[in-house]
């Protein structure tokens, strides 16, 4: 069915990453590897109470320590910031209140880290304690002083209710309504590199911040704002990230603190967080309590869905408003959901702030939905794979909540993993203690709308051809290990027919590179790739004109490959790429081109329509095989089969690496990773270390069989879709479903620990999981109704959408 693919030079092959050898020889400089003459070291004094008003900060003893060059408190940085315009609720150092154990209160710059350590411990802070709140259900009650003075009410940061079609009627018309409550514990990114930033103010009053950030553009905005400097005087250089996974995509207090200290001392200042402090940066997976009411027919197909979520946001906004919407937005893009209602609340609690982690807000509801479907299949005696195949959301369609689906390869993903794992002959038939489970998912290829709503491109690429045949490519993207530098180089090299290693990448530098919004929401390959292709095609056009004239061949007949530009009908006739550049430069002047990308508009026109739309959706299906020790509850994952609809691989090895890495991270979430706090012990993080926060080792990693489904999407560069996040999503529910297949028990909670398996085995209903879901206090005023396309809707809601009506940011 799919048309024949073009014969690519590089696309879909697996050449070595452009930065591969640098990373394997110790050459790549991460932020903490940077050192400047006279550099000072910063350390940050953090709150050791969970919720309190700051009465006084005494830094006098710290200032007297020899070697201490500056001590900084919040009053010098009074302007607030945050990643979202609606949640500018952070300060570089707490002003009047601390909101969790680990909140930054003061900072020191000293000639070495030992002295800085002594100095932060000499700072004395007097607090007036406030009642803390650690559980979102408690926060909902609004019995304690609000953690923030903004939000929807009290400690409710955000309350959302949206309904597409008449869900009540659909549920009433269903043969059965399945109602389940699930809980997904929070977890964190745990990139191996601890966050690090170095700042330096040059004599001409320009400040540079080198940082391990996934989003130099947003750091640029935040730093300029808080430092009260024109953005033209602030330069952010994103260093290669030693892993990101979403954990380095907020502008962070420490990044601004070192900049301020550099201004104060006129010396370079570096901060590198300890592992414990990285846990306090967090911005990881929100703990989410969920209730799902799914109306189905006897054949198992979904008639209507009402999905409710309660997010534990921690102490700051971060991406939380978007996270809240994301716990509802993508439930409709895999299977046909004719009517859909979503209610969500994000509560503030006195814990490290949650935010976006790989899959941003969608793994939790996906877990609930895929486990619930397994229950539907089990109850009606249906094959869970066949059930899913029977209700695929069609390609080129619009979902109930107004998301436009383009290419859709989920059926093929399911078929592949079912065949590979022999699922149909093994599911329900393995000896007790062994089981296989299946689950599916989808993810966006970049958010359709930017964080700051404007008409600017989401990604820009500049390209410069050198007379020697080299090509320099400039883009604000940041390689966090996913291989975006290689994707960028590959797209350009493919179009221009040059050697991959003749491309020079200049990335993530707000002075030198055009804006790319950042390495988040799986947006880089699609958006940057399209911008790169546009820039490269524009250069190719110039070269073709000049070379065509010289060879007396129409430009359209010229091929670009193997560093040559040649007549495709007479391949002997041609010039080298370098000669082509010289010809073009002689004719047109310097050869520099640009490309940019803006996603197509989304059909939804209601409040909240900004979360969910994407130029394309990737799809994944996974089968997981487990062995469960019935006496201990210990789960061993024996093998994983995963199919991923990538559209088109740019570099196949890197794609497989993303799939395998996602499976790995998903297994960690499914089985062992959790951010846990001791609410009864001052609200401390229980396990802020690499030993006690359990990240799977080589010993826990099973064999993974990956199937790539390549049906090019018309919006993707060469048809490519995302792979960085989507393949994580089906893993957790597939594990849960496999545990059910092995022992007949349901653990409706993540992580699925041995103790929970044993509890499920001993419970009458063979289930372990939450049993209550609180009243989210959705009022009629909160509710928004949108007619579906099938009902003849136009994407507008019953409530006029006026962006200005909502109170915007917090006070400065």
């Amino acid at each position, binding site marked *: 069915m799919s048309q024949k693919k073009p014969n690519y030079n590089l696309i879909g092959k697996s050449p070595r990453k452009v930065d591969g050898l640098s990373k394997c020889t110790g050459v790549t400089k991460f932020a903490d590897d940077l050192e400047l003459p006279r550099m000072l070291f910063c350390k940050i004094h953090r709150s050791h*109470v969970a919720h309190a008003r700051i009465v006084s900060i005494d830094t006098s003893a710290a200032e007297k320590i020899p070697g201490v060059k500056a001590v900084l408190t919040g009053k010098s940085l009074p302007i607030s910031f945050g990643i979202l315009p609606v949640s500018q609720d952070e300060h570089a150092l707490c002003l009047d209140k601390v909101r969790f154990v680990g909140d930054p209160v003061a900072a020191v710059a000293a000639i070495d880290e*030992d002295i800085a350590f002594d100095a932060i411990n000499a700072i004395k802070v007097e607090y007036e304690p406030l009642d803390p709140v650690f559980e979102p259900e408690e926060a909902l009650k609004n019995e304690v002083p609000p953690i923030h003075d903004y939000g929807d009410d009290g400690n409710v940061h955000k309350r959302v209710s949206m309904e597409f079609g008449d869900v009540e009627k659909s549920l009433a018309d269903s043969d059965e309504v399945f109602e389940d409550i699930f809980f997904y514990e929070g977890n964190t990114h745990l990139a191996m590199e601890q966050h690090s930033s170095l700042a330096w103010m040059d004599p001409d009053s320009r400040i540079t911040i080198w940082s391990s950030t996934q989003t130099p553009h947003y750091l640029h905005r935040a730093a300029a704002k808080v430092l009260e400097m024109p953005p033209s005087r602030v330069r952010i250089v994103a260093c290669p990230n030693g892993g990101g996974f979403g954990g380095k995509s907020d502008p962070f207090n420490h990044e601004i603190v070192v900049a301020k200290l550099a201004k104060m001392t006129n010396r370079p200042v570096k901060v590198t967080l*300890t592992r*414990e402090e990285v846990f306090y940066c967090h911005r990881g997976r929100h703990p989410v309590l969920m209730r799902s009411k799914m109306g189905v027919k006897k054949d198992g197909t979904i008639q209507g869905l009402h999905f409710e979520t309660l997010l534990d946001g921690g102490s700051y906004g971060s991406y939380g408003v978007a996270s809240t919407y994301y716990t509802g937005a993508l439930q409709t893009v895999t299977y046909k959901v004719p009517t859909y209602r979503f209610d969500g609340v994000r509560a503030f609690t006195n814990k490290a702030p949650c935010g976006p982690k790989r899959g941003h807000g969608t793994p939790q509801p996906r877990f609930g939905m895929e486990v619930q479907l397994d229950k539907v299949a089990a109850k009606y005696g249906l094959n869970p794979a066949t059930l899913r195949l029977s209700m695929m959301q069609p390609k080129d369609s619009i979902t109930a909540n107004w998301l436009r689906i383009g290419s859709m390869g989920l059926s093929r993903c399911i078929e592949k993993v079912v065949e590979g794992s022999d699922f149909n002959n093994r599911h329900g038939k393995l000896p007790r203690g062994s089981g296989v489970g299946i689950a599916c998912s989808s993810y966006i290829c970049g958010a359709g709308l930017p964080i700051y709503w404007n008409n600017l491109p989401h990604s820009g690429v500049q390209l410069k051809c050198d007379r020697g045949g080299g090509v320099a490519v400039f883009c604000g993207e940041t390689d966090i290990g996913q291989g975006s530098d290689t994707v960028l180089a590959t797209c350009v090299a493919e179009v221009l027919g040059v050697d991959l290693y003749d491309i020079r990448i200049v990335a993530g530098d707000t002075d030198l590179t055009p804006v790319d919004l950042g390495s988040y929401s799986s947006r880089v390959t699609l958006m940057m790739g399209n911008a790169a292709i546009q820039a490269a095609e524009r250069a190719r056009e110039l070269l073709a004109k000049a070379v065509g004239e010289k060879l007396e061949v129409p430009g359209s007949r010229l091929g670009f490959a193997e560093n040559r530009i040649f007549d495709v009908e007479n391949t002997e006739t041609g010039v080298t790429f370098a000669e082509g550049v010289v010809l073009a430069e002689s004719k047109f002047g310097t050869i520099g081109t640009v490309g940019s990308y803006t996603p197509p508009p989304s059909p939804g026109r209601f409040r909240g329509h900004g979360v969910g739309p994407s130029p394309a959706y990737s799809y994944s299906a996974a089968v997981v095989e487990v062995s469960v020790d019935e006496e201990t509850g210990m789960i061993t994952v024996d093998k994983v089969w995963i199919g991923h609809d990538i559209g088109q691989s740019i570099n196949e090895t890197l794609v497989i690496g993303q799939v395998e890495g996602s499976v790995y991270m998903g297994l960690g979430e499914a089985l*062992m990773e959790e951010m846990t706090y001791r609410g009864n*012990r*001052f609200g401390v993080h229980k396990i*802020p270390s690499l030993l006690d926060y359990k990240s799977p*080792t080589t010993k826990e990693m099973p064999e993974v069989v990956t199937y790539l489904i390549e049906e090019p999407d018309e919006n993707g560069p060469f048809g490519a879709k995302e792979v960085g996040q989507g393949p994580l999503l089906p893993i957790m529910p597939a594990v849960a479903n496999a545990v059910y297949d092995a022992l007949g028990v349901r653990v409706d909670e993540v992580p699925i620990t*041995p103790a929970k398996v044993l509890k499920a085995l001993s419970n009458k209903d063979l289930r372990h999981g939450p049993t209550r879901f609180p009243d989210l206090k959705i009022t009629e005023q909160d509710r928004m109704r949108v007619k579906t396309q099938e009902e003849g809707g136009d994407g507008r809601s019953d409530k006029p959408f006026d962006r200005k009506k909502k109170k915007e940011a917090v006070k400065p």
Partner: protein
Amino acid sequence: MMRLPAFAYHAPNSAREVVEILAGEGPSASIVAGGTDLFPNMKRRHQTPKTLVSLQDVDELRGVSWQSDGSLRIGPGEILRALERDADIGNRLPALVAAVRSISTPVLRNMGTIGGNLCLDTRCNYYNQNYEWRRAINFCLKCDGDTCWVAPGSKVCWAVNSSDTAPVMMALGAKLRLISPRGTREVDAQDFFQNDGIDYLAKKPDELLTDIEIPDQGKSRSVYLKLRRRDAFDFPVLGVAARIELDGEVVKNADIVINAVSPAPTRANASEKALIGKKMSDDVLAEAALLAYKPSKPLDNTDFEYAWRKKMVKVYVRRALEHIRSSFLI
């Protein structure tokens, strides 16, 4: 970067010199062997010794030798990796090698020593935290504070002994030799560990462990089983060492030691008694397992839920005994 506090450093060549330095410096001095336990503790400011006495150049503290009576002498400075690669030890003392192999990771075992593992500081997730974290709980009984957060109101510290080799040494009847200015003394492994999270070793600060002696195991069989989350890095949340000697089909001697659920490895006396004089039938093993389970008292200070860990005592003791029973059949 987590950094060490400053210290003075000695690296003497003989055990005698080590003891002399310790005597001279008093309790503010600390011995360091592999450093894999002490240095993280120092970085977290659990311990800030003024003086470190390194054993790295003390050759006499290393080496493995089989004695004519069938016993094995191990120098406490022996690197864990060397022990696990020693085929003779693997054949004759499989429980010991199983325990050694299960410690942390290969690279850490390449640094850590057997003596260091025996003297491992007790652990607790209220204690094994950075200085700043511990300040948030006003510190704890074991270090800088006065409340045991695991059991507030408790006058003793409940940090757990997390050594993998300690219970094995007890089960195998090992003897430990200590020297100090007062002379040499020999301690049964049994008496080396104390059920107090703070004062967890019978070794005095000025004493140096110089020899580990494991007697000939005769025809007994032994095993070590370890429960933990991940198959690398993790300390045990339960360790079971067992040794059984049979007389015909009847148990003549039984040693069962449970670790990582209390401040000291604990002998399951009742289980041992229940086995002696009996055949290793399923019922007898189940009874022995139950008797080990009943008194065990894990608390909420390690990985995993403590109620589950307690349940696992029963499962692991039974499995250990089953393992031994089947090894007799080979």
